[in-house]
């Protein structure tokens, strides 16, 4: 269906009825003419033009084919006119949908100044300029399909949701209506951005992509490891003069125009309009470098974060290293936890800077260790002059393991029930505290926690360690095999986050895996053998009786 839609969608330009009819005619004629030209074409074979034979006429004899083609052309032309209008969308119908679903952010006039606009970062699109970020075209004009795709899938990493819930017809109508906000901009027909021949991903291609990444200095904005921490980051502005952040290339699930290699190659080739991201199609050494770059960028992170639901801490026999970069930690499965902005109490954090924390946890008979990794493009400490705050992270637990389902209020506890926090703050190190709400933090004296953090290429890695059993009742004692409530909080001080202005999670459960004994390799085979012996015995007895 997607293929069909895209074939219809490329109509672009001003959808006058005549052009649509003509286009429809041409399309209907296409399989016919190809069919007629070829003396013998297998039924389902893809035709030379690259479009499948929708007519199913390829198998017929020539005169029959001719007649059938003529008839079919007429029928589908008649049907097609209606359909073509449907695809072109009805701007008036679109207006009704727009005012219900879109105007709150994008504004009634389409100027991106809806009532909610000021809260959002990135800001909603101003349609009156006709500047669209995500295009598959070599000029400014997006195709109808480009607009349809963004409406359908949304813009990951922003407030723009996907609108698959709307009927397809409504989405096409929205496309038609959006275009009326900037009719001048759509006078020029979209010009397809051609991509060089696709290069499959391979270690060689990724290596070449990395070379090119360095040669064309993607790091200037995106950072050496692609984590959006390049030196030009603070200077970047969009077409409207608003600050804009480079994409974190290691989190491609947030790529506005899609996370596939083809999407990435297209963004590199066509650039992102209205932003500092330029087009690179003529700015690589060889055309196929676009694909090598796409393959390299795709290798920087997974296509999807694969968020964890239940967290676990692995039981280990030996010592647990303090060093966050120790190879030990690479051997433990990462668990991605999504964070959201704190919007329950003032000051709210509608646009949180940290959206995911990666947890690796391990424990032995003495201690428990949490390895946390999160991206933060600005390393910052408490600084009154530059008005930055310390980067920080916290693990939240109940004061003691709950016996039922009751847990303290997720937002750092409340007056009646406190939480226990393992905190780390840049410049201060690891601390422990009780909290009865975000503003009521009480440090615990005689800290049992140790912390070691490293920062490189826009990423913090931290190991927080604590004895498994607490020496007093003020702290939680961790017990294996128990579902221990855990929650996360993080602050990007460089983005002005401090206090209640944070990103956080609700409660998760952490389970300390019990040490796996070697009994599991012994007991099942013994049971199997015994069962077999019993079966043989039963069989013998039965036969004897018979």
């Amino acid at each position, binding site marked *: 269906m997607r293929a069909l839609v895209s074939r219809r969608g490329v109509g672009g330009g001003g959808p006058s009825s005549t052009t649509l009819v003509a286009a429809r005619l041409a399309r209907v004629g296409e399989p016919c003419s190809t069919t007629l030209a070829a003396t013998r074409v297998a039924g389902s074979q893809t035709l030379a033009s690259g479009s499948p034979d929708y007519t199913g006429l390829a198998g017929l004899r020539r005169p029959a084919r001719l007649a059938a083609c003529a008839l079919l052309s007429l029928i589908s032309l008649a049907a097609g006119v209606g359909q073509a209008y449907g695809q072109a969308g009805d701007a008036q119908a679109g207006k009704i949908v727009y005012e219900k679903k879109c105007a709150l952010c994008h504004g009634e006039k389409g100027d991106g100044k809806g009532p909610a606009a000021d809260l959002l970062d990135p800001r909603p699109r101003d349609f009156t300029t006709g500047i669209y970020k995500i295009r598959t075209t070599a*000029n*400014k004009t997006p195709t109808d399909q480009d607009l349809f795709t963004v409406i359908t899938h949304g813009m990951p990493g922003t407030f723009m949701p996907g609108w698959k819930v709307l009927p397809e017809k409504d989405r096409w109508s929205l496309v038609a209506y959006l275009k009326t906000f900037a009719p001048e901009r759509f006078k020029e027909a979209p010009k397809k951005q051609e991509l060089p021949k696709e290069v499959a991903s391979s270690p060689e291609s990724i290596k070449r992509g990395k070379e090119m990444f360095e*040669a*064309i*200095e993607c790091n*200037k*904005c995106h950072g050496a490891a692609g984590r959006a921490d390049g*030196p*030009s980051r603070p*200077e*970047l*502005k969009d077409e409207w003069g608003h600050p804009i952040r480079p994409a974190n290339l290691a989190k491609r699930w947030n790529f506005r125009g899609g996370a596939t290699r083809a999407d990435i190659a297209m963004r590199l080739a066509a*650039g992102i*309009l209205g932003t*500092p*991201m*330029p*087009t*690179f199609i*003529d*700015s*690589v*050494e060889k055309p196929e470098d676009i694909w090598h770059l796409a393959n390299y960028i795709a290798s920087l992170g997974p296509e999807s974060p694969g968020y964890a639901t239940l967290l676990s801490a692995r039981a280990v026999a030996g010592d647990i290293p303090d060093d966050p970069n120790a190879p030990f930690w690479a051997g433990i499965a990462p668990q991605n936890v999504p964070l959201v902005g704190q919007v329950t109490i003032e000051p709210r954090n509608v646009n949180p800077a940290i959206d995911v924390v990666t947890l690796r946890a391990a424990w032995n008979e003495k201690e428990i260790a949490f390895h946390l990794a999160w991206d933060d493009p600005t390393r910052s400490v408490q600084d009154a002059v530059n008005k930055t705050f310390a980067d920080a992270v916290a693990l939240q637990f109940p004061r003691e393991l709950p016996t039922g389902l009751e847990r303290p209020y997720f937002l750092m506890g409340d007056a009646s029930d406190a939480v226990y926090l393992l905190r780390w703050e840049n410049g201060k190190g690891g601390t422990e505290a009780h909290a009865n709400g975000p503003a009521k933090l009480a440090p615990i004296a005689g800290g049992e926690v140790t912390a070691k953090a490293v920062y490189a290429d826009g990423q913090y890695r931290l190991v927080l360690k604590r004895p498994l059993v607490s020496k007093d009742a003020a702290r939680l004692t961790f017990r294996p095999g128990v579902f221990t409530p855990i929650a996360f909080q993080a602050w990007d001080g460089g983005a002005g986050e401090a206090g209640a202005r944070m990103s956080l999670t609700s409660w998760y459960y952490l389970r300390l895996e019990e040490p796996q004994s070697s009994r599991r390799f012994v007991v099942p085979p013994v049971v199997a053998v015994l069962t077999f012996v019993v079966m043989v015995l039963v069989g013998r007895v039965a036969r004897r009786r018979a």
Partner: protein
Amino acid sequence: MRRAFGAFLALALVAGLAVFVARPAPVGAQGGGTIEATVTYAGAPQIQTLKINKDTDKCGTEAKIEKVVVGGNKGLANAVVSVAGMKGETTAKKAEVDQHGCKFVPHVLAMTPGEIEIKNSDGVLHNIHTYSTANPSINKAQPKFKKVMTEKFEKPEIIKLTCDVHSWMLGWVAVMPHPYFGVTDGSGVTKIANVPAGKHTLEVWHETLGKQTKEVEVKAGQVAKVSIEMKK
């Protein structure tokens, strides 16, 4: 019949030749004059400085954003002076702007519609990001190995050049519909040669101080000196 055709052909040839010869020669050759314009500004120069955090070996450690540059005798640099309402041929010379020391050199360039060569002699990544309305605006990466990029500015307007990698980089290209223009030098002076004799209106454009006009009379073979004071 054949004869008639031959005669017609000959006639057509002669007529064509006549039209070609009769085309007006460049105005300057016959009785044009020169305008020597001095643009002044009584106010203070406006130069912002910015600390540089990257490419310091090429860009230096401090960037200067030159909003208003005033030289000796209050001469205002980087002003585009042109003769209003003229028409004329495009100049054969290809326009050229370089990115050198993380600056656009020249800071202000005037050209007739056509091609422009954009050079990168810094050997670091720049991106040519233009802001224009009549011409399609461009945002193209120019990595270190791409020494020259050729672009086309075909419609008259004033185009802003920026580079997102080095946010302080700012340049202007004035695309003029005729060849009667100049950009003032460090002392605020520019000369426009071969201007047809007669009364003209001079137009001055400056990136920060805006536009101003002044009447001038040009006499054949003479230099018409004119002084324009920019106000803001």
